[in-house]
Every structure is written in C-alpha cells, then in structure tokens.
C-alpha cells in the first residue's frame, strides 16, 4: 500500500521541546522532544518503562512536567490538567477504554457534555441523532445505539471511544494501545478508523507495542529508551529490524534522525 505521508512543512500541530519529568530520583522522561503534524500518525515506541506513556500523559495533562515547553500550532500552551488539554483540542483514548459500561453509546459520547433541551432536561433524541451522525462516519455498520456499551464488541467499543474524542473537534488524538484488547478483525477496524481520521487532518499520537501495527498505520516513529529519545524516523526510511534495534539496543540507523538517547558509537 502506498503511503501518503504529509510533507511535514509549516507549523507542527504539536511541538514538545526538551520535556523532562522525574518521579523521586528517577528521570522518567529526560530532555525528550517530539512533534506532530496535521494528518500525521506519529507512533511512540519503546520498552515498558521507556517513558512513552509518561511523555504522552504530560501532553494530555495527567502529569505536570518539570521542564520543557509545549507548542500547539506554534503557540506556547500551558497544560496543567486534562481540562486544559481538552481546551487545546487534545483528546485521549485510554488503554482501559474509559466508557460507562451500563449506558448506551449516545450517553457515552456525550458524557459530561450532554445536550440539554430548553427545559433543562436531557435531550436524548438530539444526542442520539448526533451520535448516529458521528458513528455513521466512523463505523457505518454500527446500529446498536440503544444498548449499553458493555454488550458491544471490542472494536465497536473502540469506535465509541474514538467517536467520543472526535465529537468534540479533537485536532490531536492520543491513542494509548488502541488495539491491545482487540481481536484481528477489530484491530483492522481500528486501522480503518485511524486512516479516516488522518484524512480529516487530525494528528494522532499512537502508543503501541505492536511493530506491525505501527508500520501499517504510522507515518513516523519515535523510539524512546530510558526516558530519552533514541531517534525519529519516517516508516518509509527504516526497516522493522532497524526499529527493533532502536528499541532494544538504542542504535540509531542511518535513516533516522538521532536523539539524545542514541547509542554513541565510539569512532
């Protein structure tokens, strides 16, 4: 399949510069820089504890950074909590699929931001109509609007979670292991979704362990090790083996731009 990678010129959607955070004595993220352009999927790779989740939680407002700057559309952003992040159009889809299992898809889509009638009551009909519109875009086969989401399949739940994020005009989507709990068909479905979101100009940070997924979906990869960035590369410029080498050894291949965490080869 041909990749239509964006040119990556102009202002990045997100530019995180020299981010550091320490928990106790451990530098979970150490001078890490990463950027994201509109319509691009940037995959963050690394071992458990490499710092990728922590870095992304700084962006989503769950953690507060010790040092560094975040630019959204070229302007410096102050993100101190999840509400701030939402204000900048940054939405997160959590690994645990944070959905209220017992209520239906429409209620989940609007949870915390319900549409109300003029009487101050819930406007369920309008919410369902809006939900049908959004879900129709993401997953046209989806029809089970009246059932509690616990009865949906993993892929359907995932599309509800994603719809929830894009319903509120997310421009930057953070997906933390979006396919971890899914079967092969559902994973394919999420892949379709990601491609569709890209074509809408949404920038996506994808955290994943699955290197095949990453090469399938991502335009660029950023590999982290011990809290530092090993290197950033276009998926077209490196092989899967080279990326594995980055993850395991911290060895930066010629096709990648090395970061501060790259293995210094003694000359």
């Amino acid at each position, binding site marked *: 399949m041909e990749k239509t990678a964006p040119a990556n010129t102009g202002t990045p959607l997100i530019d995180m510069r020299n981010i550091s955070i320490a928990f106790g004595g451990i530098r979970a993220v150490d001078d890490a820089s990463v950027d994201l352009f509109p319509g691009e999927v940037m995959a963050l790779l690394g071992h458990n504890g490499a710092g990728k989740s922590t870095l992304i939680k700084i962006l989503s407002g769950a953690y507060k950074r010790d040092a560094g700057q975040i630019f959204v559309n070229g302007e410096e952003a102050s993100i101190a909590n999840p509400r701030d992040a939402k204000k900048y159009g940054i939405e997160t889809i959590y690994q645990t699929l944070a959905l209220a299992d*017992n209520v239906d898809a429409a209620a989940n889509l609007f949870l915390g931001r319900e549409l109300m009638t003029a009487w101050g009551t819930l406007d369920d*009909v309008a919410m369902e109509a809006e939900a049908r519109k959004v879900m129709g875009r993401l997953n046209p086969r989806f029809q089970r609007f009246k059932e509690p989401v616990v009865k949906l399949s993993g892929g359907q739940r995932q599309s509800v979670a994603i719809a929830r994020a894009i319903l509120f005009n997310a421009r930057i989507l953070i997906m933390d292991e979006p396919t971890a709990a899914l079967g092969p068909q559902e994973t394919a479905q999420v892949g379709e979704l990601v491609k569709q979101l890209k074509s809408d100009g949404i920038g996506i940070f994808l955290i994943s362990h699955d290197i095949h997924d990453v090469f399938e979906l991502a335009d660029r990869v950023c590999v982290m090790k011990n809290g530092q960035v090993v290197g950033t590369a276009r998926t077209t410029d490196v092989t899967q083996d080279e990326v594995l080498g980055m993850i395991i050894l911290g060895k930066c291949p010629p096709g990648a731009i090395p970061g501060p965490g790259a293995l210094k080869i003694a000359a």
Partner: protein
Amino acid sequence: MTDTTSTSQADTARASELGAVARFLKATEIDTRMLGMVGALVVIWVGLHVLSGGLFLTPRNLWNLSVQTSAVAIMASGMVLVIVMRNIDLSVGSAEGVIGMVMGFAQVHFLVRFVGLELGNPWIWVLALAIGLALGLLIGAFQGFVIAYLEVPAFIVTLGGLLVWRGAAWWVTSGQTVAPLDATFQLMGGGPAGSIGATWSWAVGIVACLAVVFALFNGRRQRKRFRFPLRPIWAETLMGAVTCAIILGAVWVANSYPWPVGIVKRYAEANNITIPEGGLFIAHGIAIPVLMAVMVGIVMTFITNRTRFGRYVFAIGGNPEAANLAGINTRWVTMKVFMIMGVLATIAAAISSARLNSATNALGTLDELLVIAAAVIGGTSLAGGSGTVIGAMLGALLMQSLQSGMVLLGVDSPLQSIVVGAVLVIAVFLDTVYRKRV
C-alpha cells in the same frame, strides 16, 4: 465480520424469525424483567387470596396495602440511586426514626410551647415538615460528605448512622412517645380523612390517563422528527390502553372502599345529613400517602431519566473511573444522592408517624432492610449501574403484599421474618440467573 451479524440480529431482525411472544415484546418494548415481577406479584396476590379464603383481593385490603407500602416505596426510590452508585444506606430506618421524633416534638411541643402557635394552627404541619426536611437534608449531606470527601465506605458510615440516629431518636424526648399529632399533619397518614374521596380520585385518574396518552404521543413525535424507528401503532395503543386500565382500575378499587359506619354516622351528624336506609356509602378514594408516593415516584423517575444528574449517577455506577475522566464531579454527585435519600426518609417519616398518630423512638426500625430488599427485588443490581425507580416501588409493593398477606393468614411473626428473608435471597438468586442469560 462479527459485528455485521450481531447488528442484523439486534436491529434489523426479520419478524418471521422471531416467535410470537418475542415479536410482541419487541414491538411493545416491554422489559421482560419488569413483566416477570408483575407476574410474580399477580401470583402472590392470587395465591394469598385463595389461601385467605377471599380476604386478600378486597378493596379494603388493597387500600390498606397501598397505604402500608407508601413509606417503604418512597425510600426505595432513593435507595435505587444509592445502590446504583455502588453504595448502600443502612441508616434510612434510623434516620426516619429521629426525623419522625423531631417532627413530632416540633408540632406538639416546640411550635406550641416555645414559638407560641395555637394548637391546630394550619401552619404547624408546614413548619414541622419543613424542620423535618431540613434535618433529613442535613443528615444526608453529613453522611454523604463523610462518604464522598473523607472516603469512608458507605457501608461503615451508614452502619454508624444506624446506631447514631436511633440513639438520637431516643434522645429527643428521652424515649417518651409523642402523641397525638397535629390534625392536619395526620392527613399524611391516610385514613378516612386522609383520603381525597371519590370525585377527586376519578379526576386524578383521568388526568393521569391524559398524561400517559400525551407522553406516548410526544415520544412518537420526537422519534418521527429524527426518523428513528417507531413502535407499531397497535403496540402504542395497547400500551396506552393497559396503562390507563391499570390507573382507572386502581381508582375504582380505592373508590369501592367505604368509610366505616361509625365515622359515616359522625360525619352525617356534623353535616346534618340524614342517613338513608341501608347506610350511606362514602368512598375513601385514593389515600394521601399513596398520592405522595406516586408523586415521589414520578419526580424520582424524572430525575433518573431526564436530568444530567441522573445520567451521571448511572455513569458513575457503571464505571467510576470513566465518569471521572469525563470531567464529572463524582464526589458532589455522591453527596447529592445521600441528600436526596435524607429528604425521602423525611417524607417516609411523616407518613409513618402520621399513620400511627404518634412519634415513637422505634419508628422505622428495620425499615432499612425492607427498603434495600424492595430495591433489590425491583431489579437494582448491587454491583451498581442498573436499576429503576418503578421497579423498586413495585418491589416494595411485593414485599408489603407478602407481609400483610401473612398477617391475614395468621402466620406468626417469627415465621413472617423467615419467609421475607428467604424470599429476598431467592429473588436475588433468580435475578442473577436472569442477568447471566440475557
């Protein structure tokens, strides 16, 4: 793909593939669980009627049953929200006790002796009830605060409350019973005076039927506006007809229960009416406590289904973490739920003390268990996240039917407890089986 097949089953099911019963249920959108409970209620009623030799299904017994059910049904409607949020409130019976005592003390002693209102002043019941409501709100807010903000488990906080409020109830008058209560306040307990009579009962029934028809029409219009699938016309008509029949049937039963002869005689003397041959038939009509319970049911159903607050209660019950990430202030919602419970305990206290025409410090003893049982039998899941107000109120009716039926049969009270306890466990077991199958 897996989801296409499941979709076609769920949404575009071909009618020919479904049996007649399933087709009927799908068209009317009746909850099978609710249908099961109504079925159980009918079986219990008919069974008790046969066993008691025709004493159970009489206007007199059904009318009394409705009054006895009111207090527990009112509290059960609030317990639904508490349990849906994965909490429990063991203190409602004791809270009911202390609030009843305070309201009794207020109307008989405080407002008369210290504030200086005359006995029988029409403001007395209003002020007494207002004091009770404030106290109920305060008790609920306090317990809710400790549970939500200080993070003490609800089980422990309300177990403490069970003891504390019962002790406080004794404290109000050092254990003395307060009686008789204010004449207007007493109307909340039912009885011949505390019922609205035949004419008004029919009026209420007809208004309720009109409201049902309006609600059906409105729902249909809304769905049409957004081109959602509609129920077939015959199903809508059937639902409306059955609901109206139940409402008018209940009114008819309430209107078939006459005042006792002695009270009719006194009433006739007071109003200079000559009693005709064969006695004068004056119907009770719907009792005021029953009307109060119905109103509470409607308000609570509205709160759970139509308001943002109700939606949050269910979302928190389904997944507290997700609700929190969605920006819901889960602590404040928790506290509000307990405040509602406190207010409902006040209404229940008013009804039960008015019915006894006295406030005793034993008022509401063990009511917490009846209330929880009613909610659980009515389909509220103890795991949180699901339950309906109407189900809990029907559950209260079912519990009360069993209890008063056993009294009619002359079952002695230890055996009554055994039966009620066993029924609760069996009901929850059946519910678990049901939930696994669906």
